[in-house]
């Protein structure tokens, strides 16, 4: 696996590069309207056609990549950070507090993501950061759950017991034993989350939390273009395909045979 390891990062790197390139798409191209070229079909000049005010959909999809990556990266980072913190808390806690902590995590996993997101977005407005915080509530709980479960068996293993007997410091334990054992499965689960995060974002716009459809944003684009679903389906297709590609690419990084995502649906 290590030999072919770098290859699975290639697609993600490509997508990132595209997203970075998207930042250089000029404002005039992204926001430029042309009311004489409304709802034009796909052509060489604009491969995904133009929308109801004549904006180039392809340019908007490319320009929206950065934002989408930001939402995904922020959410995953927040989930990881929160989850690791919770798990650390668990390991540091006395026996009596441990079981309630796990139960709390179980509860948090179950909290409907959209509910939290609606409340957070209502409170501080809908932005990549606020959405990430909301979506990370359930995310960090499931990371913590996984880390606690796996960490327990690692700590009971003969190798760790021996290391402890020989006076290994906590830092040593984490670096040599816990980290290597825990990181792969935790990251694997995270890789599946990208698509879910973007769809939840899009669902929020549908429920009227107020995504700004004048920004190039995949979730908001799917929402905005849904009214043309039956007359100009390519409009929805562009951002949807982009979401799918990003979801797939993220999953590929952590699991080359991946297609599965768990957790709640943006219904």
């Amino acid at each position, binding site marked *: 696996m290590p030999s072919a390891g770098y290859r699975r990062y290639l697609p993600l790197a490509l997508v990132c590069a595209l997203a970075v390139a998207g930042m250089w798409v000029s404002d005039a191209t992204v926001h430029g309207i042309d*009311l004489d070229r409304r709802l034009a079909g796909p052509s060489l000049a604009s491969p995904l056609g133009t929308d*109801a*005010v004549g904006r180039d959909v392809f340019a908007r999809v490319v320009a929206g990549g950065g934002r989408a990556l930001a939402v995904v990266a922020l959410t995953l980072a927040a989930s990881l950070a929160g989850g690791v913190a919770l798990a650390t808390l668990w390991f540091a806690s006395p026996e009596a507090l441990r079981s309630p902590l796990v139960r709390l995590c179980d509860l948090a996993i179950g909290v409907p993501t959209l509910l939290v997101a609606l409340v957070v977005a*209502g409170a501080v407005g*809908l932005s990549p950061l606020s959405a990430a915080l909301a979506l990370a509530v359930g995310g960090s709980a499931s990371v913590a759950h996984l880390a606690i479960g796996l960490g327990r068996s690692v700590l009971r293993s003969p190798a760790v017991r021996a290391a402890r007997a020989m006076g290994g410091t906590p830092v040593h334990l984490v670096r040599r034993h816990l980290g290597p054992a825990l990181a792969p499965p935790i990251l694997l689960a995270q890789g599946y989350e990208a698509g879910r995060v973007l769809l939840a974002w899009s669902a929020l716009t549908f429920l009227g939390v107020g995504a*700004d*459809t004048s920004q190039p944003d995949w979730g908001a684009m799917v929402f905005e273009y*849904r009214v043309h679903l039956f*007359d100009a389906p390519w409009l929805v297709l562009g951002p949807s395909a982009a979401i799918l590609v990003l979801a797939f690419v993220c999953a590929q990084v952590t699991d080359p045979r991946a297609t599965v995502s768990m957790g709640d649906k943006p219904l």
Partner: protein
Amino acid sequence: MIRRSLLAAAAAIALASPALARDPLVVGQTFIAAGLDPARGSAGWALVSHGVAEKLFTVNQRGRLEPQLAEAATRIDERTWTVTLKAGRKFSDGTPVTARAIAETLARTVTENAAARASAGTVTFEATGDLALRVQGERAIPSVAALLAEWAFAIYRRDGDRTLYTGPWAVESYEADRRLKLVPNAHHPAGGGLPPVEVRRFPDAQALALAAQAGEVDLAFNVPAETLPRLQRGDGITVKSFPVSYQYMAWLNTTRPALADVRVRRAIDLAIDRAELVKTLGGGMPATGAYAPEFPFSGKAARPFDAARAAALLDEAGWRLEGGVRRKDGAALRLEVVAYPQRPDLVTMLPVVRARLTALGIEVATRVSENVSVTAKEGSFDMLMWAQHTAPAGDPAFFPNLFLRSGAANNHARFADPGLDALLDGFGRESDAERRAEIAARAEQRVFEMAPVVYLLTPVWHVAVSRRAAAYTPWGSDYHIVRPDLRPAR
């Protein structure tokens, strides 16, 4: 519970029969009464719109106040009026509408519904005869007709837990957030020959349009413009488009440093191409001012569009074009334009407004605010896109008094101009409609010069009707949707 409803469902499907002649006419819309008691929240407004409730006075199709259950009103003093009622009107159970019955329930409304105390404080009602009602406000009542045409003053009668009304239809059953079944009210002058009606709520307007296409609703009220081509192709569906009195406008926050300069505000006003906005929304009329064209006191000429003049004004104000961006003392001219999702048209116009301002060299940030009442109250915007019914009672004084007078409760632009205030004071002295229209015109002129607000357009809304409801003519708002002309065409 579930099992029982599943059984009921199976039975319903098994018994489903071909459409009966007296099948209710289905009206689909995005809102439905939140309850059946007008003393609570918005119920009064929705019930009037559903054709269930009436008021003593109402606003007719052309936006004029007229008596409904009342016959006439005379003023006793500043706070007191006498209202006489029409004879022979009945509630839907046949009980006559008397001054005493009205005094009793309106007193209850005023105690329980804060909205009923908004205009004249705690109003008291006293029956001075069978059909004579004395109305006294805590504060002055300039026009009792305007006051009693407010939604909170819907007329009803309590019978135990039931609430009875006087409108052309009576409530048969009500399911919260879903549907309201109506039967014709035999005691209403227009009640004979009306079909039963079912008002159904569709929170998503596109789903409503699909329901119309599928033949599931006979009248789909306010469907998105994007769905019209498909609807028009539908079998037996007619689309009727009509201008509404909700004006689209944009407040300019006059407390922001750049916008404190009237030249910048006027530049923005001149930079907006209304015709382009009309094209974007697929309908509507460029605004001539605060009022929709249907009103006799509305402006006659469309607001001008002149990008060159706008640029010159910005130059004059010291905002010079440097590298494509307007700057003054090194700082860029930057505006945050805010819209809200409850009026999707406003969000649709955002990119177009943005493009016009950007073309002028203004840096534009856009935002969509989920709770616009907070944004308006805090003033956390430079330019706030807004939809407003500017003459709900057919009176030109309503809008400028509440939105533009210095310190007014809804003065979102934070605009303070003694000149305008002095003009508006004229409304307090003048009751003749023509003279009031003149005052309105002069006030409008002043507002155009000071430009605290950019009037954008008078929108059109669209209804899709089936063959059964083909005779239906929509009125210019969502205030009266279910009306007697829903009588099926023969």
